[in-house]
């Protein structure tokens, strides 16, 4: 008896949606890093061997069995302060990044879709914001209203949002001449639906890049604010603040300033890796047809 076997390449469905992103090594590392950092920040206070606000010895003591990372300028345990010091960053930075990207994108898409005077008015008012130095604005507001966390978030959003809007508008403008948008207009799809269904998904890769970038920037701004004393106020434990407090003792006890810097760097890289990896995956699988 004769048996003919026909082998055909079976269609294996590609992972869709969020699973596609997980296939990227960069995204995986970024997620691992961010999850680890967030977990550390969340459970850090429980692990801290000492009270982060209470002195445990002389200032600037080098690392020992009692204090693994030594003590800071006031004799407090550096390890405990590092473990407790990320809380502000951990909620303020993501919220500022999310808000600035959301508001910026909304403004950008409306401006791009409507065009004409709406575009002109929206983008020129953003230009005004962009032209006004963000640091100056922050210093001014903090001096007047005091260093409240929500105020800081609002100011960061105001500083970052115009940049986001510029980038997203730039990405959305060429889409308006693409055939699928023209088709949607030709059959009378409502503007809001076109913005949400046709434009938004197709700017998602610059959007993700922006999100990662603005997360890093928010971390940077927040840390700088703490560093110059306009952010989180002592005696609270905060990484940016710790860098500023212990900067002068860098020669005597480098860990007091370096440990929080390393933490800030890890947090930033996590966000950037996710953004970068996600952008690549999307560009590869859908970007070019």
């Amino acid at each position, binding site marked *: 008896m004769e048996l*003919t076997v026909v*082998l055909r*390449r079976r269609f294996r*469905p*590609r992972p869709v949606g969020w699973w596609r992103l997980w296939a990227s090594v960069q995204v995986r590392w970024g997620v691992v890093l961010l999850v680890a950092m967030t977990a550390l920040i969340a459970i850090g206070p429980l692990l801290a061997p000492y009270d982060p606000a209470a002195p445990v010895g002389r200032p600037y003591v080098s690392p020992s069995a009692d204090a693994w990372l030594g003590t800071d300028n006031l004799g407090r345990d550096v390890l405990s302060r590092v473990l407790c010091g990320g809380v502000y960053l951990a909620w303020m930075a993501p919220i500022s990044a999310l808000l600035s990207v959301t508001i910026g994108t909304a403004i950008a898409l409306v401006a791009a879709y409507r065009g004409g005077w709406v575009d002109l008015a929206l983008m020129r008012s953003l230009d005004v914001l962009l032209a006004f130095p963000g640091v100056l604005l922050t210093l001014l507001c903090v001096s007047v209203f005091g260093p409240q966390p929500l105020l800081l978030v609002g100011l960061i959003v105001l500083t970052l949002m115009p940049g986001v809007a510029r980038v997203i508008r730039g990405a959305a403008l060429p889409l308006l001449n*693409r*055939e*699928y948008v*023209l*088709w949607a*207009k*030709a*059959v*009378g*799809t409502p503007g809001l639906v076109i913005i949400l*269904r*046709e434009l938004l*998904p*197709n700017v*998602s890769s610059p959007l993700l890049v922006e999100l990662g970038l603005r997360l890093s920037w928010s971390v940077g701004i927040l840390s700088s604010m703490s560093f110059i004393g306009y952010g989180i106020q002592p005696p609270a434990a905060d990484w940016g603040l710790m860098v500023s407090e212990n900067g002068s003792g860098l020669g005597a006890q480098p860990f007091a300033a370096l440990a929080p810097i390393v933490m800030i760097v890890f947090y930033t890289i996590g966000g950037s890796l996710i953004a970068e990896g996600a952008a690549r995956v999307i560009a590869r*699988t*859908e*970007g*070019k*047809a």
Partner: protein
Amino acid sequence: MTVERSDGALVIEDVSLALRVGEVMGIVGESGSGKSTLALALLGYARRGLRIAHGSVRVAETDMLQLDKAELRAARREVVAYVAQDPGAALNPMLSLETLLTEVLAGNRTEKNARAREILRKVGLPDDNSFLQRKPRQLSGGQQQRIAIAMAVIAKPRLIILDEPTTGLDVSTRARVLDLIRQLCISDSLTAIYVSHDLAVIANVADHVTVMYGGQVVEQGCMQDVLSAPRHPYTRALFDAVPSIQARQALRPIHGRVPGVGEGPSGCIFSDRCEYVVEECSVRPALNLAGNTLVRCVRPEPVQTFGARSVAVGHPACRPTETRPILEARSIDAFYGNRQILFDVGLKVEPGRCLAVVGESGSGKSTLSRCLIGLHGNVTGQLTLDGRPLPLTVGLRDQNARLRLQYIFQNSNASLNPRRTVGASLAAALDIGRGTTPKRSGTVVAKALERVGISPDLATRYPAELSGGQRQRVAIARALVAEPSVLLCDEVTSSLDVSVQASVIELLRSLLDDGLGMLFVTHDLAVVRNIADSVVVLSAGRIVECGDIDTVLSSPRHPYTQSLLTNMLQLPSADAGQEASVATML
């Protein structure tokens, strides 16, 4: 020669070409068959991620693959030259023509300048100083391509490789560029390799032809022999898919798609799409000599001897004429800023009939179709749909009117939202204005996909996962779910391979039989002959000729239509070729 991907997958397998001085070799195949990779490999170049695994490229005693980097650079100037498809992208827009042309030359300025003028005269362009100082963007597409060819031949290479040099050009420009290439081959004893997907172009310019499929040579031989008696089923199928301008025929598409790199059946690479497949096809055949041609097929006799040869069944051109047009346009004037694009254009689209709008690029034919759909803002005139006046901009039309006019775009890559599945795109089209339940929408979507010959299983895929032809069919399906009465097709087949174009044309014909009215915008008269019932010829925004398809194409009155027709390249008909070969045998 073999080119492989860095992971070892073969991109081009074991290709051999041999040419004598002054001859032109045409390389033809569908997109994705490895033509361009081969053309670049002949320069000793492989794209990132590819490498030339083994083989040799010998051009006039120079082995391109044995040279070091500096020698290779010199060889690419003096031995082999390359002309890319899009001259607009290949020429640096910021450099003057003089700089571009003399870049590769040695010697002092006067000498170089004299040579540049000589070459400009040769390619039929002005050679005065003001022309030499122009920038590429100040030239037309045809002139740019001539400059690209002039740049390639100015250093007097022995071999010139042309990668689809006429694909983006109008018919009349294309005819002139092809003439130029033929002339250069004779006058400069230049050998040319001409890569194209267009069989008619290859048949007109080449002495020899290599048919490529899936990275393999499937047939290679003298143009005359291959044309008169194609031996490989793939070659035969390619010829069958080309529309003819003489008569309306049943076009026979090749089903399925070109295998990707490392894919395809393990036996004969074409066996999964071949109509004449037999059991022996599960073993990969070698390239054998049959007659005067090399064929990679287990049965290398002329294809028509072992299967019913495709018969050109006349497709009825005349359908019952309805007296009442669905869509009527009168005295349409359109502007871009202050420039008037369309002058007093009027036309009628009738149900079940196809009206073709023909013209070269810049004639305003796309603007016209955009005016009809209401996407061009700056327009005056009257439109009526079913006898009722239709507003000129889409925003003022009622929902029913919007749905009854459906537009299908030229660029199948961009006509579907890349971030939405096929099914979702179709469901969105259904949802607009009419509103529907998910269950009903699923059935309608599946039905529409089946109507255009796409498996409903593909509804869950993204457009990027489909081939160009499939995407264009999905775009047609999306138009169909709105239950339109008029389809406006803007160059819908010009970005497709002939094999796929045939299937789309057949589909559109069947839609005409269902009673849809159609406006078909194109530059390709052969396609017009095969689908349209009447035709409107546009030149510089004015209608210069209109009427019944047979009348206009067989006895054109206006000089512009006549020039379009004479510049049309046609595949010499197979029968004529056969007679000729019989004659030589006698």
